[in-house]
Structures are given as structure tokens and as C-alpha cells.
């Protein structure tokens, strides 16, 4: 148990240290060393506990609950003061409702709220901890170099890096807390801390747009938090329990209402429709924030909760509706991503889409779907993080987030382009991880409820389109470009390379991970688990082997091409020889330029976004009514 406490408390210490440090050099040391320490701690945890189905831990400290309550009230006051300062009046009733409910609950029932086992650990929480520990810390290291470039480029943004890194480590601590909390009130506490962290980090730039989006995120997440608190209160008042492990063993129909409310919290946190706008708006934040909070970790907390509740959803009408929301989100956001030119927006929509898949699996709640969901969590965290970090450093170098500016990046920034290609391939291509996960989802859906396959299939078609389109853009050298990749900091390259390597390692070794950790977890709940057959594994390894040969098969610039001759592209003979320009009318020299299809008329936000939100809202209302009934 010391390891768990260490993981929760150590980042707090680091955060405190970082809040005092002004010099970047010292900061780099502290972050670097802490990252290493935390990663090692996570791996140690893995080594000692991976075989154990579940461990519950006692914590004898009565002062924890009052301290949490005190912090919650403090944060509430802080948020109200900010809301007043920026005239965001809607926030105030939400905060007051939450604080009020929490306070009333504590005062009236507090004496009965001493959980026997507030902390726990099982393979799923271990997997979450590994994701937070490894990926979270890699992002923290990346942020060192990134934020330095950020401020060098954006001179008008005030340098608040002390509080930035302070919040990042507080956030890591809170995420560890979420992973290991058995006591629902502890879960709620850490959950709200992540909400506040997200709020502060989104507003980093300090301009009108960032502040507005930060409050948007805050507002949505407060609704989620309120739902969670309400759920906890109802659960306690009706059933007398407030621990997760005891919740999971109750009869489904007795706990449906509180589970529904907790699910709403999960849906909001993972930005499912109709709550997606906060995540899309959060893309104004610096890239490490987008990677850490809004793709790899915080939003995973939302689906983590839903996956944990998965067994409860199995076979229920509520589960079906949750699955519908997830599937519908996957399909609509994948279609919406086709029309986006802003690289971060594409990644954001893709994130929401993949979270939708996980939510769908959680809603189905069979052993196959939970297995698929966990696979999705792992692979998506790695691939998406890699993509966000690459896009961040590329965006700094080409001073644009527009995909159309990334043409020929394979020549202009070869290392970044290759890493991005690996990340993108990892998102949808066989034999990489996400494909395996989607395959597992398909099988789970077919066996449980084939009607949901509709969303899965159409969404997948869309994802292939926009990923290959982007890959093609990177590869397509329409005009000669020079290599502009020099000068990128080591603190940026190191996490990128590690993530690229992790991406491939996790694809190669996932059967091992599945066998050692995921399957035991699923078996411990359902008695049996899905797995990937040996024959298919062998085929996929052969495919990976062949793919691995691909980069080596490309002739390098130095190869004297004996049997191959380089010629102009075909432009009707109007080429200016030896260049990629052509002679237009009146003797004007024109460039060969090509833009991808964005199909805004069909898949644009103006067409799809509001109908999607309304339909999803409708589903949600049906869900809530059904739960109450």
C-alpha cells in the first residue's frame, strides 16, 4: 500500500517544489528526476502486483475526510470568485449546489462515512496507473521543451510556468487517486481536483477565448460532478454503501439510479455527445495539456469509471442506452473529423470517437466487450499521446496547426513525420493495436447486440478516410521542401521516441499484457475472458514483421538509382522541366498545389454537430427517465 500512497503523495511534493522554482534549468532537473522516480515506482507496483486480482487497503486516518472537505470548500470559493470576476454567472449555482450538497451530506452523515477500505488495487487500476505514470510523465518532460518554445514564440502570453507545472503534478496525483479509490467520496474528491486542474490549464493563455473555453469545460464538468455527488448521496441514503467494491456486488436494479448518475459523470468527463463541446474548445490549451488531460489521462478517468461499472450495465436497458450514446458518439464524431483542417481538432474528434467506443463497450458489459474496452484504453492512450505531442512540435516548427501546411512533411521534418505516421497507423491500421481493439469491439458487439454494429461500421469507414488522407498529406511532396527539423529540444525528442517505441512494443507484446493482466481481471468478474487466438496472433506478427521491413525498403537519397529514372510529374506537358511548376495561361508560372477533400458540405460542423448534440441529448433524457421509472 505504501506504493499507492507514494504515487499519490510524491507528485504533491514535486508540485510544491515546482511552484517555488523560477529557473528553467532547475525545473528541468526536478521534472526529469520526478518523472523517472514515478515511472520506476509504477513499474515496481506492476512487478509486485500484476498477478493479484484485487487488494483492498485500510487507511487509518480520520483527518483525511475533513481535510478533503476543507479543500473542496476552498476550491468552491476559488471558483465562485473567478466566476464573479469573469461574469460567468451560470457557474455559481453549480458550484453552490455541489458545495451545498457536499456540506449537508458531510454534516448529516459524516459520522457514518468511515470507509473500511478506501483504497484498492486490481489489474485495471494498475493499467490506469501505468498509463498515468508512464505517459503522464513523458508528457511532463515534453512540456519542458515545449513550453520554452511556446513562450519564445508567443511573447504576449504571460509566463506562468511555475503554476503550470505545479498544476500538472497535482493533476498526476489526483489521477493516481482516482485509479485507486474505493471510497466513492475519495473518488469524487480527486475527480473534482482534476476538473479544477483542467479549468486552470485550459485558461493558460489568459485571453478571452481561453478563459471562455475554460469556463465551458468547468461548467460541463461541474454538472458531471454534481451528478456524481447526487448519485453517491442517493446510494448511501438508500443502500447505506459508499464503496465501489460493495456497489459492484449489489443487485443491479437496486442501484440503477445512482449508477446512472455516476455514468452521467463519466459521460461528461469523457466528453461524449451531448457533452463534447468542452473538449473541442479545450484545444486552445497548450499541446501538453491537450495530450495529458484531454486525450490520454483525464478523459480516460471518465471511461475508467464506466468500464468499472460495466458488469452492472450488462443486460440492462440503461446499459443499452449508454452503449447507444457511446456508439452514436463514435459515428458522428468520426464523420465530423473528416471536415476538420485544424490538426488538433481532428485529434480531439478522434479522441471523443474512441472514447465513445470504450463507452459502448462498457454499456454492453459482457466479458468480450470489457476485454475490448481495456485494450482500447491502453492503445488509444499511447497512440493519441504520440500524435498530440508530434503535432505540438510540428505546429511550433511550421507555425501552423493546419493540416494543409503539413504537405511534404516527410521531407521537411522526416523524424516527426515518421513518428506521426506510426501514430496514425497505430490508430486504425492492421496489425496495430487500435485495429485489434476495434476488432475485439466488433466481435463483442456481434455477440451481444448486433444493432450497435451500425455505428461501429460507419464510424470506422470515416476514420480510415481522414487518417489516410492525413498520412497522404505528410507523404505528398508537391513542392520541394527543405529540412527544417533542426533545433528541436532533446526534452521533446526523448518522449517522442519513447512513445514511438512504446507504440510498437505494446502492439507486439499485447498478447502478453492481455494474458497476464487483462484476462485475469475479466475472468475475476465474469468467470471467463475473451482472448486473441494463437493463429491470428501469428498472422499479425508476420504482418508486423513485413511492415517493419518497409522503411528499410525505401531507397535513400544516396542510392544511385540504376534502373530507375526520376522524371517530372504529368501535368499535360505544360511542365517547366525539372520543377513542379507549370506554364499557365499568358505565360504565368504556376505551382502545383493540392488540397485534401474536407467535404464540409456533407460532414461539416454546421451540418452534423447540432443534430448530433440534440439526438444525443434526447437519448440521455430517455436514459434518465428510464432510470427513474
Amino acid at each position, binding site marked *: 500500500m505504501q506504493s499507492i500512497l507514494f504515487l499519490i503523495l510524491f507528485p504533491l511534493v514535486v508540485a510544491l517544489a515546482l511552484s517555488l522554482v523560477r529557473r528553467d534549468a532547475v525545473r528541468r532537473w526536478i521534472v526529469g528526476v520526478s518523472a523517472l522516480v514515478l515511472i520506476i515506482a509504477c513499474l515496481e507496483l506492476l512487478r509486485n502486483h500484476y498477478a493479484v486480482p484485487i487488494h483492498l487497503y485500510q487507511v487509518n486516518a480520520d483527518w483525511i475526510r475533513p481535510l478533503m472537505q476543507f479543500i473542496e470548500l476552498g476550491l468552491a470559493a476559488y471558483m465562485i470568485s473567478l466566476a464573479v470576476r469573469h461574469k460567468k454567472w451560470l457557474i455559481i449555482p453549480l458550484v453552490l449546489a455541489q458545495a451545498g450538497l457536499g456540506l449537508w451530506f458531510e454534516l448529516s452523515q459524516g459520522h457514518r462515512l468511515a470507509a473500511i477500505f478506501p483504497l484498492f488495487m486490481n489489474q485495471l487500476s494498475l493499467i490506469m496507473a501505468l498509463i498515468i505514470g508512464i505517459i503522464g510523465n513523458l508528457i511532463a518532460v515534453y512540456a519542458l521543451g515545449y513550453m520554452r518554445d511556446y513562450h519564445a514564440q508567443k511573447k504576449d502570453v504571460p509566463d506562468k510556468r511555475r503554476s503550470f507545472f505545479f498544476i500538472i503534478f497535482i493533476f498526476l496525483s489526483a489521477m493516481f487517486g482516482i485509479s485507486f479509490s474505493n471510497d466513492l467520496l475519495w473518488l469524487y474528491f480527486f475527480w473534482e481536483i482534476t476538473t479544477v486542474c483542467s479549468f486552470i490549464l485550459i485558461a493558460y493563455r489568459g485571453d478571452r477565448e481561453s478563459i471562455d473555453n475554460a469556463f465551458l469545460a468547468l461548467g460541463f464538468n461541474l454538472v458531471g460532478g454534481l451528478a456524481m455527488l447526487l448519485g453517491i448521496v442517493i446510494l448511501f441514503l438508500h443502500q447505506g454503501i459508499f464503496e465501489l467494491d460493495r456497489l459492484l456486488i449489489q443487485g443491479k436494479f437496486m442501484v440503477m439510479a445512482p449508477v446512472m448518475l455516476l455514468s452521467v459523470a463519466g459521460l461528461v468527463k469523457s466528453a461524449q455527445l451531448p457533452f463534447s463541446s468542452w473538449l473541442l474548445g479545450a484545444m486552445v490549451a497548450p499541446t501538453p495539456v491537450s495530450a495529458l488531460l484531454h486525450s490520454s489521462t483525464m478523459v480516460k478517468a471518465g471511461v475508467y469509471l464506466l468500464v468499472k461499472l460495466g458488469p452492472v450495465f450488462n443486460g440492462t436497458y440503461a446499459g443499452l442506452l449508454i452503449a447507444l450514446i457511446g456508439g452514436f458518439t463514435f459515428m458522428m464524431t468520426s464523420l465530423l473529423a473528416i471536415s476538420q483542417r485544424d490538426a488538433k481538432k481532428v485529434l480531439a474528434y478522434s479522441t471523443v470517437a474512441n472514447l465513445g467506443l470504450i463507452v459502448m463497450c462498457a454499456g454492453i458489459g459482457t466479458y468480450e466487450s470489457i476485454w475490448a474496452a481495456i485494450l482500447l484504453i491502453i492503445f488509444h492512450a499511447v497512440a493519441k499521446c504520440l500524435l498530440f505531442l508530434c503535432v505540438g512540435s510540428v505546429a511550433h516548427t511550421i507555425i501552423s496547426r493546419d493540416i494543409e501546411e503539413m504537405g511534404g512533411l516527410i521531407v521537411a521534418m522526416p523524424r516527426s513525420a515518421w513518428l506521426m505516421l506510426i501514430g496514425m497507423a497505430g490508430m486504425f491500421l492492421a496489425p496495430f493495436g487500435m485495429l485489434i481493439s476495434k476488432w475485439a469491439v466488433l466481435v463483442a458487439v456481434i455477440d451481444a447486440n448486433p444493432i450497435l454494429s451500425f455505428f461501429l461500421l460507419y464510424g470506422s469507414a470515416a476514420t480510415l478516410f481522414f487518417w489516410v488522407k492525413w498520412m497522404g498529406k505528410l507523404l505528398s511532396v508537391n513542392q520541394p521542401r527543405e529540412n527544417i527539423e533542426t533545433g528541436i529540444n532533446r526534452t521533446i525528442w526523448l518522449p517522442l521516441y519513447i512513445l514511438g517505441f512504446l507504440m510498437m512494443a505494446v502492439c507486439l507484446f499485447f498478447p502478453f499484457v492481455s494474458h497476464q493482466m487483462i484476462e485475469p481481471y475479466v475472468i475475476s468478474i465474469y468467470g471467463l475472458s475473451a482472448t486473441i487466438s494463437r493463429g491470428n496472433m501469428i498472422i499479425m506478427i508476420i504482418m508486423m514483421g513485413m511492415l517493419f521491413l518497409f522503411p528499410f525498403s525505401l531507397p535513400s537519397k544516396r542510392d544511385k538509382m540504376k534502373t530507375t529514372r526520376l522524371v517530372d510529374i*504529368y501535368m*499535360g*506537358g505544360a511542365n517547366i522541366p525539372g520543377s513542379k511548376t507549370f506554364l499557365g495561361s499568358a505565360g504565368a508560372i504556376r505551382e502545383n498545389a493540392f488540397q485534401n477533400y474536407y467535404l464540409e458540405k456533407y460532414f461539416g460542423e454546421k451540418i452534423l454537430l447540432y443534430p448530433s448534440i440534440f439526438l444525443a441529448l434526447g437519448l440521455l433524457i430517455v436514459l434518465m427517465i428510464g432510470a427513474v421509472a
Partner: protein
Amino acid sequence: MQKSPWIIHYDGSSCNGCDIEVLAALTPMYDVERFGVINTGNPKHADIFLITGSVNEQNKSVIRNIYDQMPNPKVVLAVGICACTGGIFRECYNVLGGPDKVIPVDLYVMGCAVRPEAIIDGVVKALEVWEDKRREMTRKRGLKV
């Protein structure tokens, strides 16, 4: 023997008379696809460069460009009298002559407008030239290796 001559057809400054006859060769009446002839629009896929019309300042570089984008072995066929010598427009100030002023021409097919039978004859003869060039190319490759 070459059984799959793929053609790219380019109109230099032709009056379109010869072009119509070239296209007529593809119709059921003459049906050159029997011989495996396909009219690709792409020099990179073509073996035989069929040029009608004469060369002027504007299309000089275009003809050169298309010729360069064709992979070896390739054959150039000048179709129609304008392509052979400049035809009746030879004395014009803007006409440079036939394409042999810009690229090496292998066969000349006379006529104004040239008859489809003559075009087919020309293509068949071009196949023999193509075959010779291929043997030459293979021999050179063999020497290099």
C-alpha cells in the same frame, strides 16, 4: 513480338483531321484494340507517341516534355503530312516544321488526312522498330551488369 502497343496521341497544331482518323481507328470499323492497342492519355504508360500537326513555339516544350516522360523503349510516329514536314502550313512564320525538329521521329505516315489503314500500317511497322529498340536496351543492360 510486341503485342501490346499503348499509344499516346498528341495534337500539335493539327486541323483535327488526322486526329479524327486516329480516333476512328479505335472504333468498331477498324478496331485497333484487336492488336492490343490502347489509347492511354498518359505518356508514362505509353510506348508509341502519335503526333499529328506541326510544331510551333508554343508546343515545342510540351512535345519535348511528353517525350521525356515516356519510358524507354519508345517509338515516335509522325502522323499526317503536317507532322512529317509541316504540310501545307510549312511556310507559315510560326510553324517550325514537324516534330522531328524537337524529338527523334521513327516513322512518318503521310496523308492529309491520313487514312486509318495507313495509321494501322504505321503502328504495325512501329512495333518492329519498338522490338529492335527493346533488344538494344536489353543488350545494353546486359553489358552494364
